[in-house]
């Protein structure tokens, strides 16, 4: 028999029921960034990027060989062109798991795809979401996550995973300690820069009967000819990053003599004047060698009408797709121009201009002998491990990398997918794309975000001789000087607020200079004043103190490396540079 409920009872039931629903109404009103969590824990002495201390390494826990495989989860925290689709990722994850298990490694690999990684990735740590490792970098979230204790130091485990050490190299591992610990697996490959440069229209160059440009002086002749001959074309396309001010290297009467360095990229509005000078000294940007050279060139080209007016409104991909490919500009600055002109840019240009031909050269001229640079062993990108997971989870993740880096077949599967389905394996570490396979959804993982050193990534079959030559150059340590200051990294937290102000001031006043849109002297005065107002000199003084202390603490290592660098410099000066000057007598005595 049913019993009629009273009005009061009914209202209570409705009220209680909806109150439960209201819990969910406590949603965050706006999808904002996670609030800053607690300040960093007191860490070791500033700049202490020491070699690992000899400690007892725990034995890696082998994943169970029988029963259910242990699941390891990789957070794809910044896609970089790795297709964010389950149907692209899951078959490869399955194939990797099956291959591991068939070889006695009882792990199951899976990928967590983030649709909005910049927001969600840090929340995963703060909320305790389970995962094993992720891509991260000092320019991404790594420094703050490290300071908040979310990343597990790895140095004590490295001895147990020989394939990892062999592939990444002990040198690279040693150079990538932060605050005394190894907070991630560095992805090493390139050991030097000097490949940035200019992509230009070779078909136009051939039409004018001009020789291939090898430096900015040659390029100026080409740009002047374009302006004269092609009435509807902008000679040089530039954007907010890759513009005239961005390029460095020999230009007219100027040839760099010093070797400036900005440890950890930490200083804004200044840097160390010359890494080969002892003691090294921080200087404001206006006092560094060649401080205004790039800005003067930018202004000169702008006044000549060689550069587009909307420099600061464009991104590099727009400059390529909207200016260069449709034939609206004849040249542009680009990363690894000599390598990528024919490989990456050529197809797009040809789709608009069938007879168009793209070529590139490195503006700094290291391969010619015009300059020599410091080697780069400190890496940009890392695989970091979640410290909130049990240690066995990290060990399972490391075991995965040890397995992965132990065989080229494993690496191919991880980076390229399944041979015959996602790519075609070719001899000599080359590969071919498969006709008809959509490049935007086809599985691919880029070495520099995947924890695989670049020498293990196959190169496209269409890679040119120029590409291979440049690649060989920038991966050979013998072409560069060792950097005596590379293990030093200033502790930024002590001047965090000032650095934020400096970044804002620098952006506001240096971009118009780099675009050539303001008078150089006037612009430099404004920039310098803004930097000084933002307490640039205080930050420099702090970093100088840290640097002096670091040198004091690491005197013998610093001096030994400095000596090697100075010797290398002298050798270069007497050989390659002497040959360069012989070929370019107009540069002799310039400074």
């Amino acid at each position, binding site marked *: 028999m049913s019993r009629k*409920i009273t*009005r*009061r009872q*009914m*209202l209570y039931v*409705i*009220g209680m029921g*909806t*109150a439960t*629903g*209201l*819990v*969910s*109404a*406590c*949603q*965050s009103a706006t*999808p904002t960034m996670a*609030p800053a969590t607690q300040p960093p824990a007191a860490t070791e002495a500033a700049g202490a990027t020491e070699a690992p201390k000899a400690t007892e390494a725990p034995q890696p826990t082998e994943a169970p060989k029988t029963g259910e495989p242990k699941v390891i989860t990789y957070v794809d925290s910044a*896609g*970089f*062109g*790795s*297709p*964010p*689709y389950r149907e692209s990722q899951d078959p490869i994850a399955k194939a990797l798991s099956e291959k591991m298990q068939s070889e006695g490694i009882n792990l199951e690999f899976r990928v*967590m795809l*983030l*649709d*909005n990684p910049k*927001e969600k990735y840090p*929340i995963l740590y*703060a*909320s*305790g979401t389970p995962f094993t490792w992720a891509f991260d970098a000092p320019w991404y979230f790594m420094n703050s996550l490290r300071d908040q204790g979310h990343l597990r130091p790895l140095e004590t485990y490295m001895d147990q995973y020989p394939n990892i050490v062999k592939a990444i190299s002990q040198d690279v591992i040693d150079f990538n300690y932060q605050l005394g610990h190894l907070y991630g697996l560095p992805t090493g490959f390139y050991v030097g820069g000097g*490949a940035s440069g200019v992509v230009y229209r070779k078909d136009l160059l051939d039409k004018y009967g001009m020789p291939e440009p090898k430096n900015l002086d040659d390029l100026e002749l080409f740009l002047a000819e374009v302006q004269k001959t092609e009435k509807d074309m902008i000679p040089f396309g530039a954007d907010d990053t890759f513009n005239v001010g961005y390029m460095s290297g020999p230009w007219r009467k100027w040839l760099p003599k010093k070797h400036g360095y900005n440890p950890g990229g930490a200083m804004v509005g200044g840097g160390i004047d010359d890494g080969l000078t002892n003691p090294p000294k921080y200087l404001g940007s206006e006092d560094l060698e060649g401080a205004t050279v790039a800005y003067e060139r930018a202004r000169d080209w702008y006044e000549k009408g060689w550069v587009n007016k909307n420099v600061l409104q464009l*991104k590099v*991909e727009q400059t390529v*797709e*909207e200016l260069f*490919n*449709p034939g609206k500009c004849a040249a542009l600055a680009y*990363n*690894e121009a000599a390598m*990528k002109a024919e*490989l*990456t840019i050529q*197809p797009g240009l040809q*789709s*608009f201009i069938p007879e168009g031909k793209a070529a590139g050269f490195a503006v700094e001229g290291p391969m010619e002998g015009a300059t020599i640079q410091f080697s780069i062993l400190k890496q940009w990108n890392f695989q970091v491990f979640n410290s909130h997971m049990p240690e066995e989870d990290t060990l399972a993740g490391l075991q995965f990398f040890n397995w992965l880096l132990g065989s080229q077949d494993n690496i191919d599967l991880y980076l390229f997918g399944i041979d015959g389905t996602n790519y075609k394996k070719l001899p000599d570490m080359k590969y071919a794309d498969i006709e008809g396979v959509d*490049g*935007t959804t086809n599985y691919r993982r*880029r*070495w*520099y975000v995947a924890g695989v050193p*670049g020498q293990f*990534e196959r*190169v*496209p079959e*269409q890679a040119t001789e120029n590409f291979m030559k440049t690649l060989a150059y920038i991966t050979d340590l013998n072409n560069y000087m060792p950097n005596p200051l590379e293990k030093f990294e200033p502790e930024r937290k002590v001047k965090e607020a000032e650095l934020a102000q400096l970044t804002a001031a620098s952006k506001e006043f240096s971009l118009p200079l780099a675009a050539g849109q303001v008078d150089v002297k006037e612009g430099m005065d404004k920039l310098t004043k803004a930097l000084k107002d933002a307490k640039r000199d205080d930050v420099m003084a702090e970093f100088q103190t840290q640097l002096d202390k670091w040198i004091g603490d690491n005197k013998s290592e610093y001096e030994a490396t400095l000596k090697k660098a100075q010797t290398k410099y002298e050798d270069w000066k007497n050989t390659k540079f002497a040959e360069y000057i012989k070929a370019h007598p107009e540069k002799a005595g310039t400074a």
Partner: protein
Amino acid sequence: MINRTLSDRIFSAFNYIVATLFTLICFIPFYTMVIASVTEKRALIRFGYQFWPSQFTLEAYQWVLRGQAVLTGYAVTVFVTLTGTLLSLTLMCALAYAMSNKKFKPRNPIAFYVYFTMIFSGGIIPWFITMRAVGLYDNIWALIVPMLMNPWWIFVLRNYFNNLPTEILESARIDGASDLQILTRIVLPLSTPVLATTALFVSVAYWNDWWHGVMLLDFADFRPLQVIILRIINNIRAIREAMSVPGSTITIDMSQIPALSIRMAIVVVTIGPIILVYPFVQRYFIHGLTLGAIKG
């Protein structure tokens, strides 16, 4: 017949001109978007936005609609929108009715509780932890439940219910009707305008929602339409940006991908259904803007 003076006519003409200009200002972006979505990619880059496509193509739509993902996304979004709107209205009406009943003593504490959530939230990390803890993760309910109760619309509904003639409700009570009967047979039928308005706003919110999909779905093999669209855009952007990254050897010919027209086609695809429904319910929308404004 009313005699209109010259100044009346000038004033009317001026009003018509302003209204026409304003209409054009609103219409032209939509028009440009649709035209750009059917313009050939190279023509779009070479000549910019055009009044009429110099080279007509549906390539961008083929890109957006290829494969099952967008169709699945549509199905998910339609399900979420319909289910979410229905459940949301049911729960919010029940709560609003309870809060509007003067004989219900806890109505003020509950109203304060509801109001409190309009002003303060727990923050994104506690919210994220709570959602996962109650199982709203990697399932379809993660897209529905978090948006079920909206304090603003609860108050709008309560205020509307407050304004209904108490005599009708009292007479129903004298006739022996229970609260459930009063709510379903008297209050709701008398509240069609507010229900239509609320349903419209809630359904638009469900339709447009991408954030819960992004935050609460990781391994699920479905995504709402808005997240699938976000993925398409993010993927193309990531590939374009990665081309200039040191060390990248990407060989995809980006000129074959109509990136700009894809963006426009995506907007057309996502707002299409709402645009079609809008003319039929716009009077409720206008009415909705003034609801709850008279009596607090």
